[in-house]
């Protein structure tokens, strides 16, 4: 694994992320107009949807890392894949929670079935919840990495298919979110939305690199310790 690259640009990245997050927050609260129907509560959508999009991309990118792992046999790709999935799952909880909050404040129910992003997300989330139990039920580390990669590739291919299926289904031809957002979003809303996506993507990347650096350092430490013990 490239030891030097991990920590180096992390500092700069963190600053840029913080800056963009701040900009995003300012825009959400002061720039974007209030929604005509839902008022202030609609603003949670600026957290919910970007987080959903970023984590879904995280799952798919993890699948690509997994492909690289299987093709090269280099375990560092598996670590990158693992961290991406792990992070996406944790943020995924946030997606479901913000989704529930939004559903409750907007329509009075904690869960609604006619929201395609949310429904499709729940299924993906349930699938990826099996990732860690799968990993930990395999003792041999090499086999664990390989099987995890197979899972990540299969599940990564599943994400878009699942989304297509849910969108095609009859009840979802009039999704509430996308009719508000897709075609009819006013310019300032749209700009805020994209800034939020960018901020969320950078946040994900920063956290991802941070966790990778953490793991890498821990591994180096473990290796040194083992070498010392062997010499003792």
């Amino acid at each position, binding site marked *: 694994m490239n030891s030097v690259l991990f920590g180096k640009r992390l500092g700069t990245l963190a600053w840029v992320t913080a800056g963009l997050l701040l900009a995003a927050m300012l825009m959400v609260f002061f720039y974007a107009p209030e929604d005509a129907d839902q008022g202030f509560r609609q603003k949670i959508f600026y957290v919910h949807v970007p987080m959903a999009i970023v984590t879904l991309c995280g799952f798919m990118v993890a699948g690509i890392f997994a492909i690289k792992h299987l093709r090269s046999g280099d375990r560092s790709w598996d670590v990158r894949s693992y961290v991406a999935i792990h992070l996406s799952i944790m943020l995924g909880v946030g997606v479901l929670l913000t989704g529930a909050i939004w559903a409750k404040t907007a329509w009075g129910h904690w869960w609604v079935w006619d929201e395609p992003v949310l429904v499709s997300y729940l299924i993906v989330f349930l699938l990826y919840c*099996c990732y860690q139990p*799968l990993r930990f*039920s395999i003792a041999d580390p090499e086999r664990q990495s390989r099987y995890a990669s*197979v*899972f990540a590739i*299969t*599940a990564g*291919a599943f994400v878009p298919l699942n989304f297509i*299926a849910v969108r095609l*289904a009859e009840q979802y031809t009039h999704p509430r979110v996308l009719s508000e957002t897709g075609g009819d979003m006013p310019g300032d809303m749209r700009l805020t939305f994209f800034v939020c996506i960018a901020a969320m993507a950078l946040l994900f990347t920063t956290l991802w690199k941070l966790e990778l650096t953490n793991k890498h350092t821990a591994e180096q430490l473990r290796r040194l310790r083992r070498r010392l013990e062997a010499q003792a």
Partner: protein
Amino acid sequence: MIATARAILRKDLTIEVRRRESVPAMVLFTVTVFVLFHFGLDRDTVEGDIATGVIWVTLLLAALLGINRLYVAERDQGGFVGMRLAPIDLTALWLAKAVALFVYLVALEIVALPAFDLLLLGPGLDGALPELLPILLLANLGVAAVGALVAALAIETRARELIVALLLLPLLVPVILAAAQATEPLLTGGQSPDDLAQWLGFLALYDVVFVLVSVAVFDFLLDE
């Protein structure tokens, strides 16, 4: 590769015909679940969306029984070792298992659908049959491909059957979604669904994607 797959398939079907373990269990399970639904829903007949749900969920859960057993003999009786020592393309194993599972599912449906018609279904199946067939075939293909892959993934893990169920059911949601959407109009009194083509197309896409994924990654599951 095809010849190898055929040899493995013949072996599996020989054992299944001789031991009669998977298919009868799946059939028995299905009929039992129909009875459960009768009591659970407190109804003598079902139709429309409820009928669709009952038949597809039941078939899927019955498939799980067959899927759990797919690789057990290979693991416990040295099948994997024997095949890894032979000059064969190991993807043939996946292919053989997927085809075997497809055959088991067809056998299951040949009994389960008339049973469903007899026990629970309100409107008859006869009119719906020609449209139902491609839905069943494409859905079976998807279940077979993904089932053969996930079963191999789970066979070496500790909580085998649990992992299969937890992994497989979300993966099969698009199949059940498409199949149900396509079937429902057929069970509400025989109308032909407008977007049958759309759902068949989606099922075909799902099948293609997962066949490709399975063929690409299966080898890595048997390596050591």
